[in-house]
C-alpha cells in the first residue's frame, strides 16, 4: 500500500474513532455501529465466499454460535474479551467439524448443505432457548454505547485488515487459486482442502467474534435471532454489491446497504430489501465485480478522456 493510502486509511480510522467524542446523538452512533457490524459480517463471509469462492449460505451459524457463547459467558460473569474469543473459537471448532464433510460436496450441494445446516441450528436454538435474553439490571445500569462502538470499530478494522493481509499473502494466493481452478491448483501442489479449510476457519472465527459483538451490543434479543438466514443473505448481498473477492467490496457494500436502507425508510418503508434484491440480481448478472468494479471502470473512462499522459497504470483501490 502506498503511503498515500496508509495515510488515508489512518485518517478514516481516526475520524471513525473520534465519532463518539464529537457526536453526541446516540442514533448516529448506533447507525455507524450497525454499518461497522455489517462490515465485519460481510468481510468475514467474503473470505470464504469471495476469496475461496465457496458460496457459504450458512454463515449465520458462525455468527449465531459466537453470539450464543459470548452472551452466555459474559452474562455469567466472564470478562468481555475472553467471552468474545471463546465465541470465536466455538465458531471455528464448529466450522472445522463440518468443513471436511462439507467440502466433499460440490457446487450446488455445498451451498444448500450449509444453508440446511444453519437452518437446523436456527430451529434447534429457537426451540431450546425460546426465552428472550435480557440484560440483568446491573449490566443494564452500566450499559454504555461508546465501548460497544469501539469494539465494533476494532472488529471492522480487524476483519478488513485480515482480509487485506490474507489477500497479499502466499496462503491467500493459494486460496484464490483454488477458487479459480481447483483441479489445476491441486496439480500444482496446492492442497485444495487445506486452503478451503483455512479460509473457512478464518471466516468462521471473524464471524464468531462479530456475533459476540452483536451479543454484547444488544440489550435484549431472542437467542435464535443471530442464527436467522437474513444475516447470511444480507452479508452475501452486501459483498456482491460492493465487489465480491475484493478487500474493500464488503465495506462499500455494508455502507451502501445501511445508507440506502435509511434513505428508503424515510420514503417507502420495507422497500429497501426489494431494491437491494433487484440491485443484487443486476450486479450478479451484469456487473459481477460490484461497485468496486464499476468505480474502476469509471475511473479508467475518465482517465482515457483526460489523455494518454494521465493514464493511471495501476488501478489500485483503497485498501486493495
Amino acid at each position: 500500500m502506498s503511503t498515500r493510502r496508509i495515510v488515508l486509511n489512518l485518517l478514516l480510522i481516526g475520524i471513525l474513532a473520534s465519532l463518539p467524542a464529537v457526536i453526541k446523538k446516540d442514533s448516529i452512533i448506533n447507525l455507524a455501529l450497525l454499518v461497522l457490524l455489517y462490515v465485519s459480517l460481510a468481510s468475514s463471509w467474503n473470505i470464504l465466499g469471495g476469496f475461496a469462492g465457496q458460496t457459504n449460505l450458512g454463515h449465520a451459524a458462525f455468527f449465531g454460535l459466537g453470539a450464543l457463547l459470548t452472551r452466555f459467558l459474559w452474562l455469567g460473569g466472564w470478562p468481555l474479551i475472553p467471552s468474545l474469543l471463546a465465541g470465536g473459537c466455538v465458531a471455528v471448532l464448529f466450522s472445522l467439524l463440518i468443513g471436511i464433510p462439507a467440502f466433499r460436496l460440490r457446487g450446488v450441494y455445498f451451498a444448500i448443505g450449509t444453508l440446511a445446516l444453519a437452518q437446523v441450528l436456527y430451529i434447534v436454538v429457537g426451540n431450546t432457548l425460546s426465552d428472550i435474553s435480557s440484560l440483568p439490571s446491573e449490566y443494564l445500569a452500566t450499559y454504555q454505547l461508546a465501548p460497544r462502538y469501539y469494539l465494533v470499530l476494532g472488529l471492522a478494522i480487524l476483519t478488513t485488515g485480515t482480509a487485506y493481509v490474507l489477500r497479499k499473502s502466499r496462503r491467500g494466493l493459494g486460496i484464490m487459486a483454488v477458487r479459480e481452478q481447483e483441479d489445476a491448483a491441486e496439480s500444482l501442489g496446492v492442497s485444495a482442502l487445506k486452503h478451503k479449510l483455512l479460509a473457512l476457519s478464518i471466516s468462521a472465527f471473524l464471524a464468531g467474534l462479530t456475533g459476540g459483538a452483536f451479543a454484547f451490543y444488544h440489550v435484549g434479543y431472542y437467542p435464535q435471532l443471530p442464527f436467522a438466514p437474513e444475516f447470511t443473505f444480507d452479508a452475501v448481498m452486501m459483498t456482491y454489491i460492493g465487489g465480491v473477492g475484493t478487500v474493500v467490496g464488503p465495506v462499500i457494500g455494508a455502507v451502501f446497504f445501511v445508507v440506502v436502507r435509511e434513505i428508503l425508510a424515510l420514503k417507502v418503508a420495507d422497500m429497501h430489501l426489494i431494491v437491494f434484491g433487484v440491485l443484487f440480481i443486476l450486479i450478479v448478472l451484469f456487473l459481477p465485480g460490484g461497485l468496486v468494479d464499476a468505480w474502476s471502470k469509471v475511473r479508467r473512462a475518465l482517465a482515457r478522456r483526460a489523455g494518454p499522459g494521465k493514464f493511471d497504470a495501476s488501478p489500485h483501490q483503497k485498501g486493495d
Partner: protein
Amino acid sequence: MLEPLVQNLVFGVLVGALYGLAAVGLSLVFGVTKILNVAHGELLMFGGYASFWAVTLLGIDPFLSIIPAVIFLAVIGFILYKLVFSRLVKLDESVKIQNTLLVGFGLSLILQNIALRLWSADTRGITTFYSGWAVTTFGIRFPIVRVASLVIALVTLLALELFLRRTYTGKALRATVENWEAATLMGIDTQRVYMLAFVMGASLAAIAGTLVSVGYSIDPAMGLNWTLTSLIVMVLGGLGSIIGTFVGGIVLGVTQSATGFFLSQSYREVVGLVLFLLVLVLRPQGLFGAKER
C-alpha cells in the same frame, strides 16, 4: 394407543403428497435446465395467494382456483425466465451454479417482500363450507380437503408422467435432461425446452400452493421452508423419477409426523433437514434415482 399414532401418520401422508408435488416442480426445472431455482418456495407462496384472492374476490371454489393460480404463475415463470434465468443457462458450469443460486436467493427475497407489502405478514387460509368435513373410518379422521388435495396431486403427477412419456414435447424434455447437446442435434430447440420446463415448474408450484392454502395456511415468509422441503424431497427421491420424488415426499411427511409424535413437535422441522444432510453426505444421488452425471 395405536390410534393417535396412525392418525398422525395419516396426516403425514396427506401433507407428504404436497411435499412431493412441490418437489417435482423443482426437480423438473433442475433436471432440464440444471438450474436449482431456490425461489421455488416463493413461487409456491404466490400460487397460494393467487388462489386465495381468486376465491375471495371471485367467489369460486378453491379447487377451481387452481386454474387462475396456474395461469398467473405460468406468466410469472415466463417473465422470470426471460428476464433473469435465460441469461444464466448459457454460462459455464461452476459460474452458472453460483450465479443461479445467488440470483435465486435475490429473487426469493424480492418476491417475499413484494408479498409482504401487498398482503401483510398475516397468515391466511382459504376456508369453505366443506373445510371441516372429514370421513372417519376405524377411528381415523380423513379431512376431505386434504384427501382431495392428495388426489389432485396424484392426478397432476400422473398427467405429467403421461406428458413426458407420450408426447413429442415430453420426449424432447427428457432428451434435454439427459444430454442437451445431443438433444439439440435432433433439432430440439433447447432454449424453448428450458423455458417450458421453467413455466411448468412454476405451474406445479402454483398447484401445490393452492392446495396448501386451502388445506393449511399461507404467509409471505413460508417460501424458504417450502424451498428447503422441496430440496429435501428432491434429494431423497432421487432426480429423474417422478414417482420416486412423490414417494420421497410421503416419506418425509410421515417421518416428520412420527418425529413429532415420538419426540416433540418442535423437532418435526429439523428431522427433514437432518435427513437431507445425511443423504447429501452419504448418498449424493438420493435414495431412488439414477446417479448424477
